[in-house]
Every structure is written in C-alpha cells, then in structure tokens.
C-alpha cells in the first residue's frame, strides 16, 4: 500500500450551490486514498450525492477544486475523466443486450474485437453472469441488472468507480449478498471505490472509511468501528446505530470524566468528548448494548428505571424504559438470558461505565 497515493482524489474547499441562496456542500475537504472503499453516508439532502456528481463531472463545483490522480478536473468533461459509475437505477441501456451494454465503453475506446470479447467474458465471470450475454436488460432480475451495471462500470478498467446507492432498489436478502459481492470485487481488483448510501448497515459492512455527511459538511471521517464506537458529535452518534440520549449541563470537568447534571436534576458521570468547560450544554450519548441490567460490578452510573414496553425481536428483546425522565430509553436484552422475567411496569436497575457514555455537543 506504500506506493499508493493517499490523496488519489482530493477535494479542496469545495462549495456547491444550485440556487445561489443555499449551499448544498460547504467547504468540503476530503482526501481519498488509492484502492480504498470510501462511503459517503448521510440522510437525503446532506450533499453526499452532489459530492459524487461533482466528482463524476455531472455537476460543477461553485467554488474550490477537485483533483483526480494529481490533476485538477473541474474543467474536464465527464467523458474524459475515465471514471466508472454505477447508477441508482442501474441505467442499463434498455435497447442493447448485456453484451452490447458492456461493449459500449470499450467500443468508445476503439478497443479491438477480440480484446472486447475477452474483457467482457472476464468481467461477466467476475459478477457470475456468464451465459447472459444475449439477454436484454428487461429479461434480467433486479439483482442481475445490478451485476451488469457493476460489470459495465468495471469493464474498461477505470481507476476509480463511483456508486450512487446501487443497492437501493433490491430487496433485503439480495442487498446483503450483493454487499459481500461488491466488497470481494473491490478487494480482488484493488480499484478505488466511492460509494454513496443512506443505509448505515451497508456503509459499516463494506467500507474502509466512512464520511458521514450532514448539512453539506463531513461530520466525521473514520473507519466503521471507530465511527460506531467513538462518534465525535451528537449527529453521528444518533445517525449511526441506536442511541440513547440525555441532555444536561456540565457541572464539573476533569481529564477523562465530567459530572453532568441532567435536565431532571440527576448527575451522570460521562466521558467528555465535545465539552470543554463547566456550564456547557451537552447531549450525552449511550449505546443500548453498553447498559447493564441489575449490575453487580462497580459502575459509576447506577439508576432505577421503569419498563414501559417490551418488543420481541427474535434474537433479542427491546425494552423501552423510563429513565431519568427519558421515556424513549431503549435496552437490548439478548434472548439467551430468557430467565429474566420482564413485565411492563416493573422497576429495573441499570448501570453503565462513564467511559461508554459520551458527552457530545448540544
């Protein structure tokens, strides 16, 4: 990996506005390393697709510069960028067969016939669609169309492939198996992939790094487990995975721990991530699986809650409790410990360590 560039794609202070009133992308700085699988994750309207479209060349940055492999590409039209792209609804050419769809980028490059055949065979084999050459797109299932779209974006050996929510139209099972397949293709080819999705599960499974977008800005750029375990702000904490939140004010702050008084008057010992001084308002984030029920070990935070709702989920049960005035506090109880008798209205002792409970921005 040493010879590979860490700034294969580089966004420098990129702004984008469509209407001259609002910025869809605000001052984006982003480096994408060669060979990496980077996901742009965010709610709709967060600017992730716009970022991808600027990289593909279908949108022009209002300000700033994008570099691809060391060259500024703002003034290079999309057809000269040599970037492969997989579109949301596949964008297969309906009047061309699978073979002709795949041959399109090769014919444009005037590659000779035998080489075209060979490359198409190889690519179709990679997506396990050998024998489908003469089918028309309409004769393929959603998953097969998806594979053709991926094959078509890869067949001309681009160094960078962009994917715009490519799995959004597939059903859940197919989506999961395609996630693994895409990941394996990426690993075996070593191609750089920039992937846009609003599905956090997808992002966590597939990516080397994830850039969480909100409000036109990258909120956090890090690996999947870091993103889940150590979110740097309350948006990321609530957007990725399940999250219980308290709001409060910092009363006392030391290195590694802070005493925070919640709005209901209780004091929680938390890990100060984005709070600096006493008097700061904070949102405290706590993952459901970090909460212990009837804790016997020594935990800084121990409170009693009351069960409001029990929802059976197969492998686990979700218990909604009222804790410190928060009526939406969720617990995940693995169903292996079914000896635990839970009833609505019961009192439940809960505890968690101050390290797992992160005091973020308000």
């Amino acid at each position, binding site marked *: 990996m040493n010879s590979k560039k860490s700034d294969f794609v580089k966004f420098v202070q990129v702004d984008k506005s469509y209407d001259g009133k609002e910025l869809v992308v605000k001052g984006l700085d982003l480096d994408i390393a060669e060979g990496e699988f980077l996901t742009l994750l965010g709610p709709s309207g967060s600017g992730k697709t716009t970022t991808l479209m600027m990289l*593909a*060349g279908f949108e022009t940055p209002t300000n700033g510069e994008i570099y691809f492999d060391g060259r500024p590409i703002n003034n290079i039209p999309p057809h000269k960028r040599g970037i492969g792209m997989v579109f949301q609804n596949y964008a297969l050419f309906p*009047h061309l067969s699978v073979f002709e769809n795949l041959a399109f980028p090769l014919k444009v490059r005037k590659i000779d016939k035998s080489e075209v055949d060979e490359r198409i065979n190889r690519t179709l084999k990679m997506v396990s669609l050998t024998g489908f050459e003469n089918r028309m797109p309409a004769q393929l299932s959603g998953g097969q169309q998806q594979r053709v779209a991926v094959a078509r974006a890869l067949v001309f050996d681009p160094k960078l492939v962009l994917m715009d929510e490519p799995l959004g139209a597939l059903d859940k099972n197919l989506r999961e198996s395609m996630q693994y397949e895409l990941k394996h293709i990426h690993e075996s080819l070593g191609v750089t992939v920039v992937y846009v999705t609003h599905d956090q599960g997808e992002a966590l499974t597939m990516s080397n790094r994830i850039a969480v977008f909100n409000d036109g800005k990258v909120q956090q750029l890090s690996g999947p487990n870091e993103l889940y375990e150590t979110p740097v702000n309350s948006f990321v904490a609530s957007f990725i995975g399940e999250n219980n939140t308290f709001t409060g004010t910092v009363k006392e702050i030391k290195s590694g721990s802070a005493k925070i008084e919640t709005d209901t008057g209780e004091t929680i010992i938390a890990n100060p991530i984005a709070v600096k001084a006493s008097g700061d308002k904070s949102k405290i984030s706590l993952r459901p699986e970090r909460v212990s029920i009837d804790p016997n070990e020594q935990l800084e935070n121990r409170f009693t809650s009351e069960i409001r709702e029990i929802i059976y989920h197969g492998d686990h049960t979700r218990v909604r409790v009222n804790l410190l005035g928060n009526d939406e506090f969720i617990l995940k109880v693995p169903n292996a410990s079914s000896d635990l008798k839970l009833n609505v209205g019961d009192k439940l002792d809960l505890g968690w360590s101050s390290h797992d409970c992160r005091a973020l921005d308000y």
Partner: protein
Amino acid sequence: MPSEIRTSDGELLSVKLKKVERRRRTTAFLLAAPLLFFIVFAYLIPIFQMLGRSIDNVQMHEFLSDTHDVMQTWDGSEMPGEDVTSIFFYELKGLVEEKNHGKIATRLNYEKGGFTSLIKKTARKLDDFDENANFLDQFIDVHKKWGDIEYWLALKRGTDAYHYRKYLTTFDFEQKYDGSIERIPEKKRINVTLWLRTIFVAAGVTFCCFLLAYPISHLLSVLPTRYSNLLMICVLLPFWTSLLVRTSSWMVLLQKQGVLNDTLVSLGIVADEGRLELMYNMTGTFIAMTQILLPFMVLPLYSVMKTIPPSLMRAATSMGATPFHAFRKIYFPLTYAGISAGSILVFVLSIGYYITPALVGGAKGTLISNRIAYHMQQSLDWSLATAMATVLLIAVLIVYWLYNKIVGIDNMRLG
C-alpha cells in the same frame, strides 16, 4: 386429469368459472355497447356504403336491364342491329314516362361527353317515332351522334351493374371500348400528379414536423414541471383554436401584402416589387400544414422522451462517450417509438388534409383530397370521388400495416 377438476360443490371447474365470469363479461360488453353501436351504424356502415359507390352501377343496370341483356350478344364491331335499338327505344320510352331519363343522361355523360343533350333531345322526340320503321335510322335522324358507334359502346358499358373503371381514372388510365387499358392523353393527366404531390407534401410535412418537434419535445421532457407546463400550453394552443381560424391567420401572414412580406420589405431584405410568393403554392401548404400538425408529432415524442431516464445519458458519458455519440447511440434509438408514432400520425393526417391546402394551396398546392371534394361537390361524379377515397383509405391502411410490421402497433404511445 385437469378436465376432471371440480369445485367444492361438485361442479366442473371450467363450467363454474365460465358462469362466474359471464356476468362480468356481460357488464363489460354492455358498457362498451353504445360506442360499438355508434361506430358500426354511424361510421363503418356509411363508410362501406360510400365506398361501394365506386363500383356500384346497379341503378343504371336496372333502368336499362333489357337493353343491357340484349347488348351482350352485340360484339361492337359494327352498328347495333334492330334487336338492340328496338328494345332500347321501348325502355327509354318507359323511363321518359317515369321521368327517370334525366338520371341516365347524367350517368351516361360520365361515360362519354355529350350524352346529356343526346338523351334529352331524343326523349322529346320519342313520340314521333314510327314503331314499324328502322329504329337506328330514326335515332340518327333525331341526333346524328347516334350514328357514332362509340355512343352505343358507351351505352353497353354504362349499363354494367358493377365496374372498376373509376379506379383506372383515379390513376389517369382509361379503358378503351375494345377492353384495352391505356393512359389518358398527357394534357388530361391530373390525378397522378396530385397523388405524387400529396405523398410528397405528406412526407415533407412529416419531416419538417419531426425536425421542429424533436428539440421542443426534448426540452419539454427535461424542463422542470412549471416551465414545461407553460411550454406545453404553447404547443397545444393551436389545438384550442379552430382550424379555419388558424389557416386564415396564415393567409394574413403569408399573402403578398401580408405581415411577413411587409416586414421583410420594411427591413430592406426584400425589394417592394420582389415580394415573396408564400401563398397559393406549395410553400404555403407546407408552412401552414407543418404548424397545424406539429402537436401530433410533439405529443408522442414527448411521451416517449419523458420515460427515458436522464441517467442513461450520464451513464454513457461516464463510460467515455462524447455527448454526441451518447445521443446517437443511446438517446436517439430510444426515441424511435415516438418518432414512428408521430410520423405515422402526421403522415396519415396530412395525406387526407383538405381545408388548409384548399385555402392557402392555390392551384399548385392542392392535394388529392381537394380533388375528391371537387368530384363530390362540383362534378358530382361520386363514383370517381369514392374510388379516390378508397385508394386513399387503402394507402393509409398500408402505412398502418407497414408500421405494425416494422415497429409494432403496441409500441405506439400518444401521450
């Protein structure tokens, strides 16, 4: 065995299914029945009756049926014998008494000019005939045209119950009395010119409509809804204006002292004495028809273009195709269905167009439909008019058949 499948109450499944479905089918049929009734009685039957007139000569045949029968033995190489002339005399006399001789005079006049006066003059003198003398000589005494064998040949042919000679006339051919088919003299040929002109104008208007409609339809399909609605209204505006009003406004614009010429002269582009002839010729027909038929091209094109996702063009360019190449290989082929649907509509409509060429076409810009109207209203040769109309109908059906063969009628989208 599948035929043995029965429902829970023991009835055969196929029988039961039919019973249950019958009610639904009857309701569906009853809903469609008024329209079906209307189409059959107010549309199909009159059309076929009208078309039948192109070959139908039954009335003439009945008026002069005995003459017709006896003439079958006459070979036409020399003047008819007394057997023919005597029977013709008695039948004509009967017709004069019933005051029906005017009708046969008109019909026979289509066969050969001069028959009207011939029959009328003969009818007046019939009472003076001596039934014991030679009838042919007496006919010739009344009018010397009876001495011309062609009038007798025309009489023989004009009393056939059915004939196809109007179709020959439609294409400027005629059947000689000896049965041979020849083209009519060159200076009389008009119909073939009109047919060719009609096809040329229809094809030309279709092409002009295509050239103008393609960019507009594309714009309509990519603009945001509120702009595209406005543009759509502009395209459809002609639909909401009477055809006559639109054509008249073209007359105002195009005539020699009209708006367009005045503007060109005042701008100094055209000299006052060199004003452009934009009307009463093919130019006028072309301009007005293209404008009037444009929506019929725009709507099918638009409806097809709207279904083409913009991501296809993006996909093509992302793969390295220049925008032009992507358009030629991806976008354009996907609009074939719209192009063909629009073209067939405009072509079929313009092949039978009447008002516009009649008003702005002048002598050089009239089409076959104007000729049909002429025969319906002026010459009153309905047989010829309907023969022409039948040819026109068959031409249109052939176009549809070709369309179905090449594109498939199921692919037609009209909006």
